[in-house]
């Protein structure tokens, strides 16, 4: 084992394995999509424009959580609080833009009953959005913990673990985004 894994926090380690697991779920989804897209009668879905904004938002949130980790390491707590809440807000904004995109598609008669490609698109991106919501909840817990605990708490492990997860859902989104652009 390498030097880095020696020092890895057990929660972070477990998260790495969980990331492998979640990756397999999306590998299942996207390979199902590929298999289906090669069959007759397949009508691809046009990516809603607002999803480009989603991409910008989630990339920005990855940057803010990275800066939040740095702030925590430097014990600049005020800055840390701002950055963490910005990240959570960006995450929420991401989810909102996703739903705006969904309703845009739905109005174009791309519904569960009408379009198989559309159904895949809703479910795959929807399950990803659920993972982002999970990350937002984790950030809210982190944030609340700073006020609830009486002792000052300077461990970087929780924010590092949350950051790892956040970068993961970010990369996962980039993958899905590129995937839908290319395969459609």
């Amino acid at each position, binding site marked *: *084992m390498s030097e880095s894994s*020696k020092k890895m926090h*057990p929660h972070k*380690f*477990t998260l790495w*394995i*969980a990331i*492998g*697991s*979640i990756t*397999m*779920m*999306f*590998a*299942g*989804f996207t390979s*199902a999509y590929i*298999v*289906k897209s090669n*069959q007759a*009668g*397949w009508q691809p879905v046009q990516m809603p424009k607002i999803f480009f904004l989603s991409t910008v938002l989630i990339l920005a949130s990855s940057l803010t959580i990275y800066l939040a980790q740095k702030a925590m390491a430097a014990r600049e707590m005020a800055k840390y609080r701002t950055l963490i809440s910005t990240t959570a807000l960006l995450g929420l904004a991401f989810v909102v833009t996703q739903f705006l995109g969904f309703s845009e598609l739905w109005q174009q008669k791309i*519904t*569960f*009953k009408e379009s*198989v490609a559309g*159904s*895949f698109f809703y*479910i795959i991106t929807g*399950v990803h959005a659920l993972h982002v919501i999970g990350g937002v909840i984790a950030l809210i817990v982190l944030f609340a913990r700073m006020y609830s605990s009486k002792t000052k708490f300077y461990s970087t492990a929780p924010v590092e673990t949350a950051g790892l997860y956040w970068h993961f859902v970010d990369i996962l989104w980039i993958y899905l985004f590129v995937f839908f652009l290319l395969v459609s």
Partner: protein
Amino acid sequence: MSSEATHIQQQTLTVPHETHVEIHHDHHHETFLTKYVFSQDHKTIAKQFLITGMFWALIGGLFSVIFRLQLGFPEAKFPWMEILLGEWAKGGQLQAEAYYALVTMHGTVLVFFVLTAGLSGTFANFLIPLQVGARDMASPFLNMLSYWFFFTASIVMLSSLFVQTGPFSGGWTAYPPLSALGEASPGSKVGMDLWLISMSLFVVSSLLGGLNYIATILNMRTKGMSMTRLPLTIWALFFTAVLGVLSFPVLFSGFILLIFDRHFGTSFYLSDIYINGQALPNEGGSAILYQHLFWFLGHPEVYIILLPAMGMASEILSVNSRKPIFGYMAMVGSLFAITILAFLVWAHHMFVTGLNPFLGAFFVLLTLLIAVPSAIKVFNWLTTLWKGNIRFTPGMLFAMGFVSLFISGGLTGIFLGNSSLDIHLHDTYFVVAHFHIVMGVASMFGMFAGIYHWYPKMYSRYLNNTLGYIHFWVTMIGAYLIFWPMHYEGLAGMPRRYYKFDIWESFKHFGTLNQFISIVSIIVFLAQILFLVNFFYSIWKGRKVTTQNPWGANTLEWTTPITPGHGNWSGEIPEVHRWAYDYGKDGKEFITQVTPVDDSESKH
């Protein structure tokens, strides 16, 4: 490697030290609820998995007895069956719908609840911390959650047996359209919804457990316990967890799509379907897609079931032959090879579903490749036994029975792995015979071997030996008598899953053979009841364990007190100095892992 181990040791010692203090000073703080119900002690959780698994084994086994009665005696009437099953067995005769429901539940329960949760859940929980030298799992809380998710899954599945339209009845693989359309059959209604909820909870349970097992094995080993000093049980449980963590999520994605097809009008799996002459609007779906997603889990699943049995058999064979395991690294390597290949062979379950025959050729090749690591394992087990000083304990007999069944069942796998032979053999009793012997019964034998061998550590008492021998011989002979004849039936083309065969001229002559199989299966079922009686009787009344290391084994669990508390070792965790298989070395019968290496020792 050693500096890393030291570090891990220091890390694990900090938390456990508090646990240790707790045992001595806060003993009265443990209530019944925290000690036996919502326990975070891996040993208690293991017992919870085991006993829940045994409950399900009883239910699943009883189901097989009932549908075997139908297959063996299609004309007979059993009034008691109507008392037990009510409408399902009107006039004492099993209804066709009920037959399919029972077959489906038998498969689901045995594969997932008994052989996944009951086998790997039990022994991963029990053995990992004890054999790697840890106070508990990496996250005892997640570990507890893992059990309670399984428990909830069990309650939901159990409740599906009591709904009016019956439990799901479309086969344990839950292929659409039977699983996707409520109108397709009575069992496809609420029974299928409960099946999906239960299985989703079960997937969560497996994932939580698997994450923990991997994290514990990689991070919590005691000082000196390098990966190559791990007992083979731990290696097997490690690969089992890897398989589960990587394949269950794919099944989960398949379930999500299925739920949308059932309830939200999507057409992932459905296309061009007529029910009662009515055309459904669904278009563009493919039932094959579900099969791909299902078998991407489904095939690794058979190794999730089998690997723990392999690991335990390796350990028990070595201990009771008083010989080192033959080819330790080859054993680890073959486990690794099986794990990789398990992900690459799923389509051999789909040769006749319309899969591209060209693609099928690759899956045939990869499937037959599994014979190589399997043969390595069999060779090593046999050479471990060879010229050993064998102690025929019940655990040892079951481990040897496991090897026997694995060989017999594995050989028929070579037939079934060929896509051309599969045209004739698919969906016949040949398949039933193959997977019951190699996966079902063999893994059950591994589980029994584990229970008999580690029972003294679990309950500080022994199981009754005489009952154990009776249990072994009846089950061993019975298993072959049940499944051997099924190969002939299958070669003759007798299809599986049929309700009765007496209306086919070509299968009529199997009537008495089917009766014979049914009678033997009842006898074998009764032998399992005997085992249950033995198990629960011995918890309170069994012969007490008086020595720390009753089997003269090398592994760490036998260095704990006879009844270990939460935290396992009362003092410091022992340091490991050697591998787990120094039996009969330099004239010593066994040298435990905690014995320092002597300068005069010969090298192994």
